[in-house]
């Protein structure tokens, strides 16, 4: 089975990146052979909708499971629509979390784990868009 793990580096020993849409790399791992492919995340610097773009990418790569830290509401909807199982709250290296997954130690999430926001760098606070000007 093809598993996608968000990572801050491009190898199996890279740490899991907690952000989904704006992680630096997606590591696609074959759970049987542990063969992997590291794909840089083109959505990392997207002005908006990074989670959706990222979901589109991993769906096109045929991943059945996503292991990451947190998933926002838009990405969650998209991943569900793509039939991808979502595991959040993961930490450690890519290799470690895939091993944990294979041992059945990771739980799927049934809802987004972080709130929505728009664009880079700021949470959904009042006035943030005034501090971080468009174009988005």
């Amino acid at each position: 089975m093809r598993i996608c793990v968000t990572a801050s580096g491009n190898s199996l020993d890279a740490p899991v990146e907690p952000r989904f849409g704006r992680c630096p790399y997606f590591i696609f791992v074959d759970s049987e052979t542990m063969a992997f492919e590291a794909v840089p995340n083109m959505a990392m610097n997207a002005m908006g909708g990074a989670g959706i773009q990222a979901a589109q990418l991993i769906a096109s790569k045929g991943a059945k499971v996503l292991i990451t830290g947190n998933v926002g509401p838009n990405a969650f909807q998209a991943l569900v629509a793509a039939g991808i199982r979502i595991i959040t709250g993961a930490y450690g290296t890519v290799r470690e979390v895939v091993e944990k997954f294979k041992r059945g130690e990771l739980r799927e999430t049934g809802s987004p784990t972080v709130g929505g926001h728009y664009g880079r760098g700021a949470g959904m606070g009042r006035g943030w868009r005034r501090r971080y000007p468009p174009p988005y």
Partner: protein
Amino acid sequence: MIIAVASGKGGTGKTTVAVNLALSISNVQLLDCDVEEPNAHLLLNPKINRKEPVYIPVPTVNEKLCNYCGKCSEFCEYNAIFVGSNKILIFPELCHSCGGCALICPKKAISEKQHKIGTLNFGSAGNLELIYGKLEVGEPLAVPVIKAVKKQIKNDKNVILDSPPGTSCPVIETVKGSDYCILVTEPTPFGLHDLKITVEVLEDINIPFGVIVNRAGIGDRKVYDFCKEKEIPVLLEIPYERVIAELYSQGVPFSLKIPEWKEKFKMLIETVKEYAGK
């Protein structure tokens, strides 16, 4: 004549100036373009005569025609479309209404529908005509609502535009096309910092401008030094006075209660007309 009232920093007194200015002249239309948090109506208590929704076009997909090729999603610069293997999701709040997805769809499965993002409020307070836009909660695009507000401009009126703070797109949308821009600042390091940024913007889009110093008396002289150095006219100073603050706290425009201020705002308009060459 169209006068925009803007500021880099928030809370400097844009609305105070815009409202008092509007109350001091005749044949006036006040447009509150701060559609994220309009507040001119709080000082004017207008009678709202009618409301009008503001829509933007967003895509809708006929799933009977869609073959999930994903070209729309690939095309969308704002990631507003997700295409799964047998499901398509549209995120209207990310859509910028370019219409490109409908054009690019090889199956002609995408058409556009109207999505409500805000409301125009048409009100009046005495002879003053007030129009303000209000963006829906959760909608990120202020600019189309500001455009809708500005569409209501009547060319034979003295038009005053109350701008949102900052220097981002909503501000540009508000001030562009104005004959003159009044920048309200306060004589503090924060006021000066944001004033400088706004001055750069206005120089760039080539709109004549002058400064009103509100809460004059606090802070330091650096705003004045900056204006002198850049040859920016200081049009008016509004002192940091208890009586003005008290009226404000009661939601009363101070020129209504202090007649000399009405005169000052009238004179201000004449000065602005001269600077704007009107």
